[in-house]
């Protein structure tokens, strides 16, 4: 099952993938495009990725979570152009109880943000355009 998707993410479909009669706790996280960043109004974001590595890294993150806690994890990240309010990432974790579900869900979204090679470019309402997190550029300038 691919982790990157160019179609809208569907929480119900992801939940159905991890639900089971023995799993009484389901935790989910949705990351949604915000209308503001750094005091500027945002109208949309373009997400891109190093596809092969993002798939591999997401697979490793999910496998880690499923070996560390007794849970089933569903994870998808959207790629392409997203408007404010659209879901960019969805994590759904099902376990026997809430403790492992919450802990594993938090782990998966934190590690995805830290390790998955995914980038976003913001389109601002004032017409500006910028890559998120690009402040390192120029550090190596001689």
């Amino acid at each position, binding site marked *: 099952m691919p982790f990157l998707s160019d179609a809208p993410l569907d929480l119900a479909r992801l939940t159905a993938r991890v639900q089971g009669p023995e799993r009484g706790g389901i935790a989910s996280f949705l990351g949604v495009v915000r209308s503001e960043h750094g005091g500027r109004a945002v109208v949309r974001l373009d997400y891109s990725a190093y596809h092969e590595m993002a798939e591999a890294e997401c697979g490793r993150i999910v496998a880690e979570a499923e070996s560390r806690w007794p849970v089933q994890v569903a994870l998808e990240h959207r790629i392409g152009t997203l408007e404010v309010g659209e879901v960019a990432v969805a994590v759904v974790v099902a376990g026997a109880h809430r403790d492992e579900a919450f802990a594993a869900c938090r782990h998966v979204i934190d590690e995805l943000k830290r*390790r998955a*090679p995914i*980038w976003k470019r913001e389109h601002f309402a004032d017409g500006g355009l910028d*890559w998120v997190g690009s402040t390192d*550029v120029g550090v190596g*300038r001689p």
Partner: protein
Amino acid sequence: MTSSASTGGLTVSVLLFARYAELVGRSRVEISLAGGATVGDLIDEFRRQVPESLTLPRRPLCAVNLTHVLSGHPLRNGDEVAILPPLAGG
């Protein structure tokens, strides 16, 4: 560079993404190195051969063959090395 004539040279593919691809004006560059070269050696050589890359950090985030690595990671012929801008998923 930690060159070693006995191990021969190697060629790797450098992949660039997002802002870095825009800055360098390319998304893929082949670079030849002496045997025994590390990711750090590759970045130094890349900066010498591709002037546009001088705007990138001296020690950027790198991956080899789809896995994050540190700059001391040794390279093998045919490796695919990605230079990754700051990650911004989620």
